[in-house]
């Protein structure tokens, strides 16, 4: 029989946390801090709207780009929260989560040989999506001493004549790093000078604890070269609804919409109706969750200080990224031993790129109570290891 497979797909590694997942799900009394989604259920008024749409028999396709009503609400949201202005008829459409938008953005923008700059540690899908879109991923290794922000120097060093697209994953999963306005201005200047485009994945934009999130698209000259990807999963605790959106220059959006049209058709209809409620009346829900996350974040940072575990203070998303280099183990070994001895699961930093070596990702999308127990376990582990 002939090889049924595409040559590229077989080169792509499956996600590195699979192994841990299998162990954790078998282990009794294990606490996992490995979850990358909110612990909150979707606020009831949003769920209610989804249920209502089903009752009303709104079970059909929407237009490819999504419900007009939803797009109008998204445009208002982006304007009131980040000062972005998009024509929702031409410069935006609704996707199946931010993930779909990442994929089709790469497919719509890349030609073979085009280089895509991907800062790491970062979410696992940028690199495979770039490869599958025939692009050439070029990793920029972010550093703890810069609080895992992307610096202009790092960017400039990675730019070649083939560079076309820069992925900007902030607020960042797994580090929790944010980019402030001044950081972005330095990046924007280079992007414009080298005639690059930016794919700005802002899925955690509502979860920042220092200042309100700044979108690079809001900086002068950047709107025409930026795709903003966002969604409802993290901000409104709507991961399972699979709903996101992408905004950008009409020329790119029009082409992306073709892929969406042929590959997806449209995002789930009832999710779209629910999301209208999220955009219209959800700001308070988000504020409440943000406040909770922030309290947990402070609590974790405090516990790390107490146990003398080095960790830069992150101001976004719901992750902390402590350094475990002092224990002389690789991230994966650390995570494995921690799980075996204390039944506490964390994600090794290397799941998010090689430069995540020496770090672990801890999610605080958990109740304060669970975090307390988890930190007690981590503390016991750390002390035991230090004794040798």
């Amino acid at each position, binding site marked *: 029989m002939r090889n049924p497979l595409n040559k590229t797909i077989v080169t792509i590694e499956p996600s590195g*946390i699979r192994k*841990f*997942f299998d162990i954790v799900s078998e282990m009794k009394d294990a606490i*996992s801090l490995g*979850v*990358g*989604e909110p612990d909150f259920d979707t606020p009831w008024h949003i769920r209610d709207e989804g249920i209502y749409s089903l009752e009303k028999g709104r079970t059909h396709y929407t237009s490819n780009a999504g419900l007009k009503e939803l797009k109008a609400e998204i445009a208002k949201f982006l304007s009131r929260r980040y000062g972005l202005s998009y024509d929702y008829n031409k410069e935006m459409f609704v996707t199946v989560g931010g993930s779909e938008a990442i994929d089709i953005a790469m497919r719509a923008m890349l030609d073979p040989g085009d280089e895509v700059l991907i800062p790491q540690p970062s979410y696992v899908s940028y690199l495979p999506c770039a490869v599958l879109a025939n692009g050439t991923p070029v990793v920029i290794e972010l550093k703890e001493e810069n609080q895992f922000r992307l610096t202009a120097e790092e960017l400039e060093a990675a730019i070649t004549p083939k560079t076309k697209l820069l992925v900007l994953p902030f607020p960042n999963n797994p580090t929790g790093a944010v980019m402030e306005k001044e950081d972005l201005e330095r990046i924007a200047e280079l992007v414009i000078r080298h005639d690059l485009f930016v794919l700005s994945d802002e899925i955690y934009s509502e979860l920042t604890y220092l200042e309100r999130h700044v979108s690079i698209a809001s900086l002068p000259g950047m709107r025409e070269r930026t795709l903003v990807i966002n969604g409802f999963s993290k901000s409104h605790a709507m991961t399972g609804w699979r709903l996101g959106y992408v905004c950008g220059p009409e020329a790119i959006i029009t082409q992306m919409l073709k892929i969406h049209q042929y590959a997806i058709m449209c995002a789930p209809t009832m999710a779209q109706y629910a999301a209208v409620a999220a955009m219209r009346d959800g700001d308070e829900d988000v504020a409440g969750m943000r406040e909770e996350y922030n309290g947990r974040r*402070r*609590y974790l940072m405090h516990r790390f200080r107490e146990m003398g575990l080095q960790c830069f203070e992150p101001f976004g998303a719901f992750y902390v990224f402590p350094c475990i280099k002092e224990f002389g183990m690789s991230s994966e070994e650390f995570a494995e031993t921690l799980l075996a001895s204390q039944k506490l*699961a964390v994600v090794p930093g290397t799941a998010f790129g090689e430069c995540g070596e020496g770090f672990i990702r801890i999610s605080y999308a958990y109740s304060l109570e669970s975090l307390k127990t988890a930190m007690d376990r981590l503390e016991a582990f750390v002390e035991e290891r230090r004794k040798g």
Partner: protein
Amino acid sequence: MREKILTFIEKNSRIDLKELAIVLGVEESAVINELEQMEAEHIICGYHTIIDWDKVGQDKVMAMIEVRVTPQRGMGFDKVAERIYNYPEVNAVYLISGGFDFMVILEGKTLREVAQFVSDKLSPLDSVLSTKTNFILKKYKDHGTVIASKTKDERIQMIP
């Protein structure tokens, strides 16, 4: 800071004050000061526990009684309310807009006990015109807390 403390302890009054200070990002002494002041100012009026008495197997009967009254001259409703809320059996008294005046929440061991309170103590009060007793059959949610058993974390335990 007051509002933040209150929002937090309204849901979890048992939190360790040191932890509360960490979570709010302030000094522990500041939290203690604020709490003491708010207790003194009667902003914080008490710390109670939400109990599902059904699970203890102890019978408790609760009733919401709609009471119509004639307000007393010069005193309005407050004087009448006082006569009612001074009974220890009375859990809560609210002045209500609409078809009646007070909502009185009463707790007793048996139906009989509650009924007796209404007929012996509440109804005979001079200013009480009428009462309507509604027994509570089942409590679903109290003080913002769903009484039904805790839901399990059904998330997949490792997600990148």
